[in-house]
């Protein structure tokens, strides 16, 4: 039996968009998705800059460059002017162009920023991909060095960009090395693989122990889909009961997955049955006659004399 280790995960940043996690090194022209403030690739301790900041800087410089072109041409035309009239015309024309371009830039500059950012992201796709692959290599090295926590934290960051079973399974493998706690920043639905996977079931079992609220529709769908496989596990029924019990936290889920609940109601712990009984008794607007009947039957059979259930149904 494996000995699980107790760890404290570092907080992962919550961002509105995934790209906000990308940071650019101005020195080695690489990207980082980790928590570091300085580049770990190049020797120089260059401060990493968010990709959005870089894109905005490039856009700003492009605008400056255009202003400089206008200024340069205006100056050249004035330099080559051989009469006072031509000189004044060149200077005036240059200033007018300058002002017009400034106004135009003020009016439409914002659109250019967005457009240029998308273009920049597209252009940097390969570079970003290369950086992520390099990150996987580092994770592999961490595993070799038994730095599972670091490996998990890194692959968690990579997982924001790469949605694949490989990443999910690796995450699950690493997570299964840890003692899970209630205060941990755990994830569940993001780890659902496309196929049945024992590591996920194992993790599901442990995670629901400490954070049952992680169960959502995606988890329920996966469990219902692979329920036969789960049932065959050593503690399969217990897991199913955990999932069904966790699903009772949202009335909509109760209604949606009442068949699943009916099926595993025998594996629900007492307090989850009590919760189920209260739900089906209080929320009469839902059409869950079968669930009501099944719940009533289960209560009558197992908790007929339990004072907690007295008067519930």
């Amino acid at each position, binding site marked *: 039996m494996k000995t699980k280790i107790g760890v404290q995960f570092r907080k992962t940043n919550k961002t509105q968009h995934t790209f906000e996690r990308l940071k650019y090194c101005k020195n080695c022209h690489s990207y980082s998705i980790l928590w570091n403030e300085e580049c770990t690739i190049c020797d120089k301790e260059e401060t990493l800059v968010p990709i959005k900041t870089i894109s905005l800087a490039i856009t700003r410089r492009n605008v400056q460059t255009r202003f400089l072109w206008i200024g340069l041409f205006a100056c050249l035309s004035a*330099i080559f*002017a051989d*009469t006072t009239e031509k000189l004044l015309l060149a200077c005036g024309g240059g200033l007018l162009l300058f002002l017009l371009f400034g106004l135009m830039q003020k009016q439409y500059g914002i659109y250019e920023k967005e457009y240029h950012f998308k273009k920049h992201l597209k252009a940097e796709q390969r570079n970003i991909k290369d950086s992520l692959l390099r990150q996987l290599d580092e994770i592999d090295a961490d595993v070799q060095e038994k730095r599972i926590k670091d490996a998990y934290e890194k692959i968690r960051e990579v997982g924001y960009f790469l949605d694949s079973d490989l990443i999910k399974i690796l995450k699950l493998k690493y997570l299964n090395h840890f003692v899970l706690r209630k205060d941990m920043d755990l994830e569940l639905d993001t780890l659902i693989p496309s196929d049945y996977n024992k590591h996920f079931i194992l993790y599901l079992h442990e995670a629901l122990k400490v954070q049952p609220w992680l169960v959502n529709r995606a988890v329920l769908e996966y469990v219902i889909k692979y329920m036969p496989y789960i049932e065959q596990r050593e503690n399969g029924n217990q897991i199913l009961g955990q999932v069904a019990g966790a699903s009772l936290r949202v009335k909509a889920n109760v209604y949606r997955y009442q068949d699943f609940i009916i099926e595993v109601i025998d594996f629900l712990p007492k307090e989850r049955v009590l919760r189920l009984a209260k739900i089906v008794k209080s929320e009469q607007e839902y059409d869950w006659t079968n669930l009501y009947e099944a719940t009533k039957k289960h209560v009558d059979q197992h908790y007929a004399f339990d004072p907690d259930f007295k008067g519930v149904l």
Partner: protein
Amino acid sequence: MKQFVRKVMSDYQTSLLLRNILFGLFTIALIILSVKIGFSIKKITLYDQAMAYYQEKNWVAAEEVFAQANAITTIRYGDEIWNESMSALTDTRTQLEVLSEQIQTGKTYTNPELMVDVYDSYHFLKKGSLQADEITSAFFTDISNRLKMEAELKAYFLTGKEQINASLQANLAQKTYKDEEQLILFFAAVPAEYFGDEKKKEQEFVTVFRSYDQKKFKDIASTQSFEDVLSTTAKRINFYNDQDLEADWLPTLLEKYARTEINLAIQKNDLDLFSAKATAYRNIKNALPSDSQVLELIDQHIDSQLRQAKRYEESNQFEKALALYEGLRSVTDTSELIVSLQESWTFHEPLRLLQEKYPDKTFQLVMSDEKKWDSEIFVAAFSKDDQLIHFAAKMPDKSVVYLEDDSFSNRVIKNFTTIEFPLKRKSPIILVETDSESRLSTYYGFVPDLSESKWVKRFEIEGDSFAIEGLNNVVVDNPKGTGENERAYFNLKDTGLEYDENNSIPLIKDEESLENPADPLDNSEIPGTEPSTPSKDATETTGEHASDAGMMNVYAGPGETFEVIGQLAKNTSIKKIAEKDGWYQISFDGKDGWIRDTGGSVEQ
């Protein structure tokens, strides 16, 4: 390209670089533009100031400020017409300033040519400016006065004149005569204005340089050679001519001097001296007047000498004539005359052909004739020195063919002559008579083949006498072999002598002839025959005249009209040099003399 740039640097870096480069360029352009604007403002300010001066009629200040404004070329500004007029003033000022600098340079380095150019340029400018409008004229005067140009030029040329006179006097005093050409040029270059006018300049030139040249000529004529005096003076005359300066005193001096010297040579009758001086004088012909009396004197004397040489030639005094021709060769072309003389001399003395070829040999048995074997003239003679018969023939192309014959090296040559057959008078046979072992003589017949330069032997026969008869017959008394004891007749063929039995007759020997068979044959006894005799040019035995007795006159020329230069005993042996009209030329007391061919007195 874009992909390559992206590989080298990121968009972030590219944008930064491009922005910075453009910023740099823009900054530079901005600085240049600022400078341009600054200068343009300055130009406009100066221009307006110049215009203000102009309106105040202060032309010099207006031009000065305008020139400063005009020097700024960053921008064009102002009224074009006014600009042009002011630019013209600027040109005038610039030209005057350049001339002023040249004056200072000319003064510093003593360069009269430059100063004359400056003077001419200045007056050209002045003339143009004074003919222009009032502003230009006033401006020119102001600038000229400010630069003190006229005063500087005047001071330079007046000082120069004084220096010329001083230098000339110094040359005469020291007798060194240096820098003369520079002094003349400088004098000629000094503008007439500083003499008063052109006429006064010419008068001063004549006064100064005539006196100088006369004194100098007197000096060099007394100290230098004739050629050096001519050379020095001619050089000076040519220099004057080249500079278009009229200096007629030098040719006059030269003519007088040369006439004296050449007359002296004529009086001394020294042809070489005359030729040398005449040549030297003729060499400076281009420096002499076209009617040079000395050149005429030279020509007259040369003609006189040529006539004298002709007279010598006509009187056969070829050596004297040749000496005159050779002496005159350097002053006139006598080459053709000398060639003609040589030909005449050769015809007169053909032996010269052999004497020129063999100057160390003495010749005997000389014979010569003209127009034989396609030659102009030939001569044949026997030399005791090498025991050979030498032959020389001058051909129509003036070449000379020489032949030698050594067929008689073991024989004693008695005589040789030419025998002519009536139909072949231009191709006679040379008959050589030598001793014989069995007869009185051996007779050899030869013909020279001048085209092949060789002898052709026609016959060889031994006999007691030899004669020719008729057109083609040879008569030999008692020949050895066929015709022995006969007066044998032979026909001369190409293959030799062919015996003619029909005409041959037996010889009748009398007692005297039997007793003395070695006596020569008396040919007069044979009717119709011609005895074998040497040619008229050959002398018997030694080629010397032998006489009977008494004295004979020796004349200076071939005739009794010539002066009698001496007398000669008739039996004296003497060498004949040539023959003419029955007279023999002989050498008499070291001179050429002539004796009459007295026929019987000379045995031939």
